[in-house]
């Protein structure tokens, strides 16, 4: 049959797209007819044979129209040939056997076919089985062949000999060191997998294009290569993404999850750089607009220098609940004790209302040595002697000692705390010597030393050696004055302009 007129006029595709809707009719009809037949034969239900015959007739009609629509859809191309062929013949089989099953039972024709009734059950059974296989193949054509079983849970996964589940498939995993990331493998491929390969893969190559492998991506599709190495902006792949969504040539097709501007910029940058297969970020030239995008891919997406978002040292830590009597004693002394979050039993203790809190009172904290994670003893009467006791709070995570009597000696005493991430030493007598030992702490990330004896030159030095620690020395009186005048000057410029 010649469908060329049909195809050219767009009617073919229009009707073809009804295929996924139509197919559900014969599937449902056939299965209900089969159920009725089984139920009738087992004597469970009272049903007239003509009822089943009636349902079968509509199943056959539905299957026939599905076949026609399916054929028209297949003309638009882009499907895996082998899978498509299986699906097609199974579908035609469904229609054919459904008609046979109906014919042999029908009042007019059935009696004229010799041995007709003998064909009924085999034809019916075949049509039913083929419905299931054709349906499954159809699903594989549309969604990709691992769609159904992609999220098989354990233990069935291991039993079926499948690979462990990668739940984050299709998302860009946070990258520990962006400079060392292989651009194609770590950045480009995850974007393509999230947005493109659903239709451009080994089994469903729309436009004869596969984007699931590097070699195939370079090869291109039915219109030739989709990338112009070194020229992202001229590459078909990028151009199509930038077309308005309503444009027929826009990719991904309207209604599908779209690429973000950032993702397009990253892909385009990679092509600009010659679309290399195995080059790392550090080996390529990073343009200004791309910098923040790459920085955002780094774990936590922090762009500012030094601020590395990582799991906290007390994540997942669980201790037993603190002794209520010990907590009551602290509360009586005027301290505030709070549970930080449900499930962990870690405590936050604050002496904000007890400026008289002193070294002797540190003993009150000792029964809760496992539980205290956040401790605020700023602006109290604490000295090095009391600070020494802090070293026993082994799960301590944040420590406020601003405006206390702590010195370098006291600071050295708490060096061994394994989970301490934050120390506030603002307004204390701590000096360069003290912070040199503090930065050695394994988990330390933030150190606040404004209004201490610590010098900027030493901070600069330490920042290089220990980039994971942010040492904040605040603003000096001079830099505050500069801050005030810098903004002011912009305002006065504007004023002058207005006056003119």
């Amino acid at each position, binding site marked *: 049959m010649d469908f060329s007129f049909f195809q050219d006029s767009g009617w073919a595709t229009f009707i073809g797209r009804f295929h996924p809707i139509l197919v559900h009719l014969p599937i449902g009809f056939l299965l209900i007819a089969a159920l009725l037949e089984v139920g009738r034969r087992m004597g469970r239900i009272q049903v007239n044979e003509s009822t089943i015959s009636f349902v079968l007739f509509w199943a056959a009609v539905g299957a026939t129209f599905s076949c026609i629509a399916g054929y028209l859809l297949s003309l638009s191309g882009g499907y895996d040939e082998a899978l498509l062929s299986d699906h097609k013949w199974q579908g035609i089989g469904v229609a054919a056997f459904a008609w046979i099953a109906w014919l042999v039972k029908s009042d007019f024709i059935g009696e004229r076919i010799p041995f007709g009734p003998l064909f009924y059950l085999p034809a019916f059974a075949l049509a039913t089985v083929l419905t299931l296989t054709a349906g499954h193949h159809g699903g594989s054509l549309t969604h990709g062949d691992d769609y159904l079983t992609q999220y098989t849970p354990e233990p069935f996964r291991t039993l079926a000999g499948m690979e462990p589940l990668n739940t984050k498939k299709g998302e860009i995993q946070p990258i520990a060191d962006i400079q060392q990331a292989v651009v194609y493998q770590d950045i480009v491929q995850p974007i393509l997998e999230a947005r493109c390969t659903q239709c451009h893969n080994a089994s469903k190559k729309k436009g004869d294009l596969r984007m699931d492998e590097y070699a195939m991506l370079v090869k291109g599709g039915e219109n030739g290569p989709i990338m112009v190495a070194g020229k992202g902006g001229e590459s078909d792949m990028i151009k199509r993404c930038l077309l308005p969504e309503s444009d027929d040539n826009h990719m991904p097709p309207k209604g599908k999850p779209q690429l*973000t*501007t950032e993702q397009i910029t990253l892909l385009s940058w990679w092509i600009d750089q010659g679309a290399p297969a195995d080059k790392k970020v550090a080996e390529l030239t990073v343009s*200004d*607009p791309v*910098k*923040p995008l790459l*920085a*955002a891919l780094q774990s*936590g*997406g*922090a*762009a*500012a*220098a030094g*601020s590395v*978002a990582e799991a*906290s040292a*007390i994540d997942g830590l669980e201790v037993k609940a603190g002794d209520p009597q010990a907590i009551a004693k602290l509360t009586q002394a*005027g301290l*505030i004790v*709070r*549970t*930080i*979050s*449900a499930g*962990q039993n870690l405590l936050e203790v*604050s002496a*904000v*209302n007890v400026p008289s809190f002193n070294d002797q009172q540190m003993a009150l904290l000792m029964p809760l040595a496992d539980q205290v994670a956040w401790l*605020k003893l700023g602006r109290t009467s604490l000295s090095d002697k009391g600070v020494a006791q802090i070293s026993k709070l082994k799960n301590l995570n*944040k420590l*406020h000692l*601003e405006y206390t009597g702590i010195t370098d000696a006291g600071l050295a005493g708490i060096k061994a705390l394994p989970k301490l991430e*934050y120390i*506030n030493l*603002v307004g204390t007598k701590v000096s360069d010597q003290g912070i040199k030992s503090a930065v050695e702490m394994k988990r330390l990330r*933030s150190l*606040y030393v*404004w209004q201490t004896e610590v010098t900027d030159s030493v901070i600069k030095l330490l920042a290089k050696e220990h980039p994971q620690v942010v040492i*904040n*020395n*605040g*603003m000096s*009186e001079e830099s*505050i*004055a500069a*801050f*005030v005048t*810098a*903004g002011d000057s*912009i*305002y006065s410029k*504007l004023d002058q302009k*207005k006056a003119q």
Partner: protein
Amino acid sequence: MEKLIKELEYRRVEQQTRRHFLRNCGFGLGALGLGSLLGSCDSGASKTAQVAGGKVPHFRPTAKRVIYIHMAGAPSQLELFDYKPELVKYDGVDCPAEFLEGKKFAFIQGVPKMLGPQGKFKQFGESGAWMSDYVPYMHDLADDLTFIKSMHTDQFNHAPAQLLMHTGGARLGRPSLGAWAAYGLGSENNNLPGFIVLTSGGKQPDAGKSIWGSGFLPSVYQGVQCRTGGDPVLYVSDPNGISRDMRKNTIEAINEINRQTYEQVQDPEILTRISQYEMAFRMQMSVPEVMDVSKEPQYIRDMYGVKPGEGSFALNCLLARKLIENDVRFVQLFDWGWDGHGTSAADNVGGGLHEKCRQTDQPVAALLQDLKMRGLLEDTLVVWGGEFGRTPMQENRNGLVMPYMGRDHHLDAFTVWMAGGGVKKGFTHGETDELGYYGVKDRVHVHDLQATILHLMGFDHERFTYPFQGRNFRLTDTEGKVVKSILA
């Protein structure tokens, strides 16, 4: 079900208050049965703890404290942070019909003209954030901020939009964000309220005190408004001739009577009253101390731009830092005067907006810098925004040409920024179309913003509820999704 029964019991006890009154009047009505009907003293003790203590957060908070800076009247995102170069080209061109179809505006009528950005924009920091010359002090802080450029709301009038922003509903009667925070996290300072409100700009916000009210939460959680001139809180200082000891004795006596009454009638509002009396007594000492900026060094006052003896937004920012330093959970700043319609020399997006920025830009930047160097920004969330945005079209009230450049209220796109307490540094979430009319990527509704702020404070907004009138209420009503991508 259990909660329903509890509330029923509470309502029943409310009824009994009347009987109780009658009994005291000498009728002796129901005196016998009353004792068994009323709850035991034990439950009362646990309620006291609840009022003072807050709840245990669902997860570890990254924002232990919040400063919410609300520019009442709604600042223009198109002049400050949402740079739209395309809009320059369309300046003075008639607004396309598609922008107007089916839309309602507060004042725009007929076909308005587009209005190009009035500020000069540049990119700043490693993150390359766009900011205009209206906010020069913020330029250096680009890499500390997370911008949400795709905010949208449901309300285009000030009062309902402010209510929606702060209470999760456009009508009166719901607790504000700060009240929820105080209720959830409790106070971290025994001598100061957990929720303090400071206003500036000459007027109160349109929605009035309801936007820092406690709604159906116990009233102990409502925002305490502090004045920035004279007594910071009215009526907490001792009257002439009354010594502090005498005041103390008085309050102890009143509270003892209140406590006895509570044990008899079980009304939780009595506990609120008791704790408010106690708090007021402690505040007599603590508030004047924390609200006194005269002990701050001159260079710090200069940093904020605080002028002596003048209540101002700058002073409020400095006070906010001091309150946060003293572990007040939630500090809410309102500054009035951002409603740039173009009706007067003050209300426009040219010189008027510029003047508002001059009053606020330096203090906000100073606040961030100051929090940072004191080690407080890490676990303090600072939020800046208005109740809605402003149109890319120039306002044409009554179809006339306005005397000044102005923009109308706009609910489909506005910008909010956050800093500190667990949000990314140097990050932008969401995007508006090329004319800044509508969010085209990652739109964030007011309820999403609220869900995110609660998340940063350690609460799952869907589980953080309060039973009232037979159902559990929450800040985000039935909506809200946490904006995960801005979390550090």
